[in-house]
């Protein structure tokens, strides 16, 4: 689960990671009021769950009161890669001496918590990795061992930090970031840039915090922070119905049991010249209501020209799926053609139900996919 910059910073404050003074505004009026009460300059920052807002015009400086209206008008309602800006963070301006990149991430490839730092802060780390890889240091931390003095040593060595006060501050920030990472089961905690301001003080100018979705149910007192703002309405609905759903832009709606098989189905559609409209995994259980929810979501998409079921019964029973289709056809007004592949557990019973609905079914994934592709091609 991604957090907004301001949510991440609220947590930083809780973990004693220094942040600039700032306030969130949900409307232009609110924002105007905050700016009027502040010492200029202030920075107005669009709050969206996607990177690259700077380039998109989502971060602007207000130097004088004349800047206020044009800045607020340009940011509120701005569309950044599909996300509409409906809240901003207004922060005090800073005299920056140096910008650093600093993050801890869950590294699935070596099962360590990887500390990443770069002397080139304020730019995307991927670009630094491409253009100046030597600027980047990666330290792999075993969570059973923890962050220790030899990590600090390598960190300071890489960044060329010798000042003692600054070292203490970095250790403070590193320890608290690491603590936050562990206590909140994060996937990522990123400060970019972490800035050094006058007096050798450190301040986290930005925040990117991602909580491991599996850990979210276990976190206490974090309900206020939960958001699904990076999911579409359909994706949220699917999630609440126990489905995994991702919107794509093709025209063959897919309903599959199992994530791997669902991806393989999409891939096969593409292989035979079609375009999948979505990823949809009805999961392992056989609740017919899931089929109804799945059909509801898919038929909302005006692009969809044909619906393809691909069911390999294991835990999922074919007759349950067939019954789900039957119930859906009774309840919903579905005029789209439906292609059904059914095999595995209770295949015969399932096929019999499908037959009774006057629909065809096949046991071959390849046949079903080819048929779906040929139908939209007509």
């Amino acid at each position, binding site marked *: 689960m991604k957090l907004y910059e301001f949510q991440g910073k609220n947590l930083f404050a809780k973990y004693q990671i220094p942040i600039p003074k700032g306030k969130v505004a949900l409307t232009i009026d609110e924002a105007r009021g905050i700016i009027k009460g502040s010492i200029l300059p202030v920075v107005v920052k669009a709050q969206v769950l996607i990177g690259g807002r700077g380039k998109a015009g989502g971060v602007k400086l207000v130097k004088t009161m004349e800047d206020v209206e044009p800045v607020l008008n340009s940011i509120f309602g701005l569309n950044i890669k599909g996300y509409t800006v409906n809240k901003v963070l207004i922060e005090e301006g800073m005299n920056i001496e140096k910008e650093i990149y600093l993050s801890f991430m869950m590294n699935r490839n070596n099962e360590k918590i990887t500390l990443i730092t770069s002397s080139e802060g304020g730019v995307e780390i991927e670009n630094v990795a491409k253009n100046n890889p030597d600027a980047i240091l990666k330290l792999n931390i075993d969570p*059973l061992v923890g962050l220790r003095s030899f990590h600090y040593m390598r960190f300071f060595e890489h960044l060329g930090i010798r000042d003692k006060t600054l070292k203490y501050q970095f250790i403070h920030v590193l320890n608290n970031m690491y603590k936050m990472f562990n206590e909140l089961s994060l996937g990522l905690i990123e400060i970019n840039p972490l800035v050094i301001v006058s007096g050798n003080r450190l301040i986290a100018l930005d925040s990117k915090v991602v909580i491991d979705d*599996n850990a979210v149910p276990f976190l206490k007192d974090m309900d206020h922070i939960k958001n699904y703002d990076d999911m579409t309405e359909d994706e949220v609905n699917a999630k609440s119905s126990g489905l995994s759903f991702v919107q794509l832009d093709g025209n063959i709606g897919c309903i599959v049991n199992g994530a*791997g098989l669902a991806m393989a189905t999409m891939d096969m559609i593409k292989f035979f010249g079609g375009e999948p409209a979505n990823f949809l995994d009805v999961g392992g259980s056989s609740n017919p209501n899931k089929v109804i929810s799945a059909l509801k979501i898919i038929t909302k998409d005006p692009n969809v020209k044909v619906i393809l079921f691909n069911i390999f019964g294991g835990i999922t029973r074919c007759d349950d799926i067939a019954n789900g289709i039957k119930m859906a056809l009774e309840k919903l007004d579905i005029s789209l053609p439906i292609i059904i592949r059914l095999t595995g557990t209770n295949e015969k019973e399932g096929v019999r139900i499908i037959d009774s609905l006057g629909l065809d079914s096949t046991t071959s994934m390849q046949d079903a996919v080819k048929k779906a592709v040929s139908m939209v091609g007509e």
Partner: protein
Amino acid sequence: MAILLHKNTNVIVQGITGRDGSFHTRSMLDYGTNIVGGITPGKGGLSVEGKPVFNSVHNAKKELLVDATIIFVPPKFAVDAVWEAIEEEVKLIVIITEGLPALEMMKIKNYTKGKDINIIGPNCPGLITPGEAKMGILPGSIFKKGNIGVISRSGTLTYEVVYSLTNGGFGQSTVIGIGGDPIIGSRFIELLRLFKEDNETQGVVLIGEIGGNDELVAGEYIKNELGKPVVAFIAGKTAPKGKKMGHAGAIISGKGETAQSKTEFLENLGIKVANLPQEIPEFLKNEINN
């Protein structure tokens, strides 16, 4: 020989009295798995499918030989269940449960690295040695005893592939679903090492997907060390970047994590990658005959 699981492996079920635990205990017993008992804290003294239930793995071990455990307990208790099995020195731990925090799995993984413990999962369908035993939720009927090892990050896609294999005349030595989470107990490479040593396994099918670098690490090992033919399949060529495709671990976070780049990488190493699951038996035939 097959790997990890055999007819005589003494298996316990952690969470045996739960809905899933009891259902699959029946199904595993039907398949021939040597289930010797189960664990549900507070339900010690009951029995499920004629097998004794204990309050703890410790208590079970006082009365039974235990070689392996399969964990069906809900995510809230699953982490402790895994640690309990580790502390009681159970050598094979299969975690079916979905929803374990990755950080907890990371600790478990680092703790057991280099130690004589094999963990499969979490969020996996389990494993099966056809004709001998299964630990998991895989539908036994589609499997057939034979000489192909299968390792997969997926569930039903594995069934699809195994179905093709069986129909194409290839039985399986052991089939393992390693789970869809980013941090898992055994990755491809760890199981390939076991298949390398297994005389019964003549070839391996590797079913990967988007996310992470397991397929790449496995590819290097296959090229340099395995010494057995392999056919791979990578799901997710049409998956968009940055979106979780059902599995917590099926997400493209960087360039090397797409299905295309994984396919290319493996093919550059000389490893055959099938475009369709149904092509796998044909590819395998060619590889084995070469």
